[in-house]
């Protein structure tokens, strides 16, 4: 009797049951509302084409905010003038590309017609090399330490990951506050009896801190990838190595490193791609200075298009296309490596 009453309209108990009832009711109403038009569309285009209808919202979104800007960028790169709309811009063909690539020697930025672009390329290369080495090294060491049964391991894992959650601009502003002439670090140095160091005036220091801050901000992400790789290595293998009398360095060199190599490769390529794209952290931290010592390619593009008195969208567009081509190749390499790892 009681069961019958419950199944025939006895009120649902508790807030969660009430919420579930509301959700189910809303879903039913929505389904009743959308059912007739969906059936009409299906009759019109056929069931086989219905998947495209469901894909349409995302396609529109990507089209508007990804593919259309890429198309406009390519159009800008082959047109000249200062007009914003393509119709107002005269076609110049490969003129901007030729200007960017016109160099006496590619090893000497000053010999290039667009020397700032090549300074940006050189700085980005320097940044990329140091960033890759430092990032992989520190991420690997951190992952190795966090993989050990140390006290407070969960806490430290979280601590190393927190900077990843911060906006790059926030990260750069925090470090700028620490590193500026009257910043925290100089206060510590002078308190300890040392001299102030003008970190953003010396080109070497500026590049060092650009790399350091970037590593600090993103290391947690790569540490996580490597930690996952380390944890995927079976414990039995290490125990077998222990039984085999393998010394710790040899365990690292002959067991850990080869088995971690697929993860390391992914980290290397991801760091490479992100280094080539670097902009916001370095720009907020150093403004590209001193002079052009830390001006990266993306900053060159930004400045050329939006920050110079004469806004040269065409030249910036061509530089973007060239950078995009480099990133496309790097992404292909990453996809290839990831798929090979998965297989």
């Amino acid at each position, binding site marked *: 009797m009681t069961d019958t009453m419950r199944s025939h309209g006895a009120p649902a108990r508790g807030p969660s049951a009430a919420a579930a009832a509301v959700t189910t009711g809303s879903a039913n109403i929505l389904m009743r509302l959308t059912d007739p038009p969906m059936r009409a569309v299906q009759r019109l285009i056929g069931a086989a084409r219905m998947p495209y209808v469901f894909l349409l919202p995302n396609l529109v979104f990507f089209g508007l905010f990804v593919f259309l800007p890429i198309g406009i960028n390519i159009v800008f790169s082959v047109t000249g003038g200062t007009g914003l709309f393509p119709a107002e811009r005269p076609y110049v063909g490969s003129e901007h590309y030729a200007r960017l690539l016109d160099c006496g020697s590619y090893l000497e930025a000053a010999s290039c017609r667009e020397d700032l672009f090549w300074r940006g390329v050189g700085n980005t290369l320097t940044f990329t090399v140091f960033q890759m080495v430092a990032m992989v090294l520190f991420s690997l060491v951190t992952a190795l330490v966090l993989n050990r049964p140390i006290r407070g391991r969960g806490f430290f894992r979280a601590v190393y990951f927190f900077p990843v959650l911060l906006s790059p601009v926030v990260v750069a502003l925090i470090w700028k506050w620490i590193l500026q002439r009257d910043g925290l670090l100089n206060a510590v140095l002078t308190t300890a009896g040392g001299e102030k160091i003008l970190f953003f005036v010396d080109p070497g220091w500026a590049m060092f801190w650009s790399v350091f801050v970037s590593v600090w901000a993103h290391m947690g992400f790569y540490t996580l990838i490597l930690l996952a790789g380390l944890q995927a290595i*079976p414990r*039995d*293998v290490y*125990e*077998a*190595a*222990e*039984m*085999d*009398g*393998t*010394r710790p360095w*040899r365990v690292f060199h*002959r*067991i850990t490193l*080869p*088995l971690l190599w697929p993860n390391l490769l992914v980290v290397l390529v991801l760091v490479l791609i992100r280094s080539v794209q670097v902009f916001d952290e370095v720009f907020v931290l150093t403004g590209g200075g001193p002079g052009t010592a830390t001006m990266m390619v993306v900053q060159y593009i930004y400045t050329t298009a939006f920050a110079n008195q004469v806004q040269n969208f065409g030249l910036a567009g061509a530089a973007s296309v060239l950078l995009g081509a480099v990133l496309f190749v790097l992404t292909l390499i990453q996809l290839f490596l990831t798929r090979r790892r998965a297989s």
Partner: protein
Amino acid sequence: MAGLELRGIRKDYGSTAVLKGIDLSIADGEFVVFVGPSGCGKSTLLRVIAGLETVTAGDIRIDGAEVTRTAASDRGLAMVFQSYALYPHMTVHQNMSFALENMGIAKAEIAARVDRAARMLRLTDYLQRRPAALSGGQRQRVAIGRAIVRDPKIFLFDEPLSNLDAELRVATRKELAALHAEIGGTMIYVTHDQVEAMTLADRIVVLNGGRIEQIGTPLELYNRPANLFVAGFIGSPRMNLLPTELVRGEAAGPAATLGIRPEHVEPCQEAEADLTVRIDLVEQLGGETFLYAAAPNDIPLTIRCDGQSRLVRGDLLPVRFSRDHLHRFDAAGLACRPEPLLARSHS
């Protein structure tokens, strides 16, 4: 090869005692199998012997030398893991030679040892393959080969056949027995499979709840179980355990529980019967038949008959118990002596 001595081995994880005082001597060249239910501490005991786990108390001696605090790599033991634990990025040859390289042995000697082990284990054609390109049985042989080349004092096996299918398990079991006969090393083998234990062991150590229940040869354990646990654990199907009062003429004795193996329960005429049971399930295996029946008070009783049977579910069957094979246990679960006649005649 060497003997092993364990004295008062205890292993606690926090407040949980996993090994509660293990005393055991294993002679040089002996094949000893640790058997017991899941969580009984058999793998922990093996890992303690290997040096992969520290002990909370007690001492371990190998060939008389104290090794309780000695590192795993310095004990001179080799272990075959349940998962094989092969180095996946190395070839079979590299897997087998890795430990020898660690020991600083000359390349020519390494090559000779690997070659000898590979021939013994029929792995010569696979030396340049990686583990992923091998079958389960081949990987198992590589793991054994990796142990053999080191010429260890004692071989340790941690459920090495549990990842193999039934057919391969039987074949590999035979190979292991042959290997022991050939190289004659001291071997300690952990399994929960009592068929492996019965067929491979010189002596079986039955563990339960971190303690040794009984140590003996396979037939000693089968014929003279020291207590109800061993009686129920060794033998498949397990021994029937019945209250004494169910069996004619037994109630007056000191025993509280009677044990009788399924093959010693005999169908008989009503007049000679100790019990009449109701058949619940008939398992026809061709050469033998298992009858799963219910005795009075729904006490389960398993009967093993030679050949095939025409009995079906629901049939009533009078049975009697061979008095020569009746095991008697007191109220504490310990075997009452004298033991069954047949057991005495075998021991």
